[in-house]
């Protein structure tokens, strides 16, 4: 699974370069997020701009990531596509996460492909 991390100091941006977060890759997603965020202190922003499909398993995986990061390293979401936003709305989980319209600006040279 293709996740890309960009370290912005206090904020760790993780781009999901996949079009789906579903039952078939939910466990893998959780494990990769655990590895990518190890050692980071501060907010984590998940850029979902390329994700066009999520199911209840994928949503559960995102919640699991938020829980293992804990309140000290809040997980926030950015750039929800319409189909992903629909799942958050129908489950009312849009009220649980801080959701940004777009991901934070990344300065040149901050790219750090994982």
């Amino acid at each position, binding site marked *: 699974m293709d996740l890309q991390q960009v370290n912005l100091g206090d904020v760790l941006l993780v781009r999901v370069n996949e079009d789906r977060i579903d039952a078939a890759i939910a466990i893998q997603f959780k494990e990769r997020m655990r590895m990518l965020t190890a050692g980071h202190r501060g907010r984590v922003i998940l850029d979902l701009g390329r994700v066009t499909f999520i199911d209840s398993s994928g949503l559960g995986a995102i919640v699991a990531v938020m829980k293992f990061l804990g309140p000290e390293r809040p997980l926030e979401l950015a750039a929800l596509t319409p189909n992903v936003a629909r799942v958050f709305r129908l489950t009312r989980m849009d009220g*649980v996460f801080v959701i940004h319209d777009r991901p934070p600006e990344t300065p040149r040279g901050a790219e750090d492909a994982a």
Partner: protein
Amino acid sequence: MQPDLADRQSARCGRKAWKIRLRFRARPLAVRTVLSRIRRQARNRLGPDCAARMELALAEVLNNVVEHGYCGRQTGPIDLTIKPVTGGILCRIVDAGWPMPDLRVPEGRLPDLDVAFQDLPEGGWGWALVRGTVSGLRYRRNRGRNVVVFRIPLTPA
């Protein structure tokens, strides 16, 4: 195992009369393959929004068959039929797994969110997502098989 697609598919691509029939094994990757395939076929015919609502409902019902219907058994076949009806798309899913509890579709009540951080739900939304995207959801147990039928409205309710 690869989903057994080609020999069971009869997609008649006429302007009105088309129908998708698929038989595949109840496994997560087979479900994913089938959904991607249906997505490609449905998008042109139904438009992206209707196709996306159908994909979400099918994903939840099919994953439920994989995780609960065939729970404790190796796996088994799923038969999926999709066809246009007046004002929408009719989907029928048949499997030979365990019957639904109390022989009815779960209510699909949303999990409680008024809980401590570590108790936030990591699942339990499946039937709420189905009920939120379909109309006319029906279930029956017929000769050892589960039959789930629902409609996806062409325009959201």
